[in-house]
């Protein structure tokens, strides 16, 4: 989880949670979850847990942030890593620009 935190950006904290953002979307969140130790158990509705050494990591879709999320206890609080699709959107924008340039080149010809 420490590695995950270092690859994410802290966005806000309360007395109970630290919220982080990370890019990559659902695939990244699922990949990160799969790298966690412990037996995988499905709780329902696309929610999964892995319990290891008394701690539990949860993979779920946050209803408020609308992102795939990993939550994990950290000290007396919970770390939540919301994995958004910014990287994917950025890639689409880059592709879109490339397509525009290609289209304009064809028209000009």
């Amino acid at each position: 989880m420490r590695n995950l935190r270092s690859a994410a950006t802290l966005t806000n904290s309360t007395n109970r949670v630290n919220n982080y953002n990370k890019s990559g979307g659902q695939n990244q969140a699922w990949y990160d979850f799969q790298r966690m130790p412990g037996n995988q158990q499905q709780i329902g509705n696309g929610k999964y847990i892995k319990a290891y050494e008394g701690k539990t990591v949860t993979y779920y879709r946050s209803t408020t942030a609308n992102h795939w999320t990993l939550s994990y206890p950290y000290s007396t609080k919970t770390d939540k890593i919301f994995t958004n699709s910014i990287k994917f959107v950025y890639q689409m924008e880059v592709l879109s620009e490339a397509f525009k340039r290609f289209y304009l080149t064809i028209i000009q010809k």
Partner: protein
Amino acid sequence: MKMNWKSTDSNNEWLLLGMFSNPLHINQISNDLSLYSNELLLKFCKQKSHKLHYWRIIGAEYPDGDDFLTLFEQKDPYPFEYELTEEPNQDHIIACSSFSTEHNLITKVHGYGFSKNSKEYLSSIVLGVEHMYIMIHAGSILQIKVTEQEPGMLTDDLLFSSFN
């Protein structure tokens, strides 16, 4: 009928008949048990009257990320399927996974939580059941700890408390 746990002595003679969920995962950690549920149903009855009562508990998330418990008091085991037994002590036979304890007289109920915008939110419920404690913690998935060790004060505010 309201259970009204916020008033003192309200848990007098209440029995915890079981906890129900579908699915319900149970892990052992040392002498304690950790149960995991997406939606939990607690079944109570009054020792003398055998009147049944249920708490349906689900987790919710505040926009700033804080998790809290949403608790519904109800008279039937919704949302789980059930069959009714014969009168006079009519009971619900609930068709899902369950967890129950040998001793089930409730000795205390504590509710912990926090306040936001002048509203109180429950984050944990601690039930004392004779020789053990059942702690229900808020989260995207509810985590229920069953332990013989008396829990200390939780970090959140004590919102209500009642002793038998």
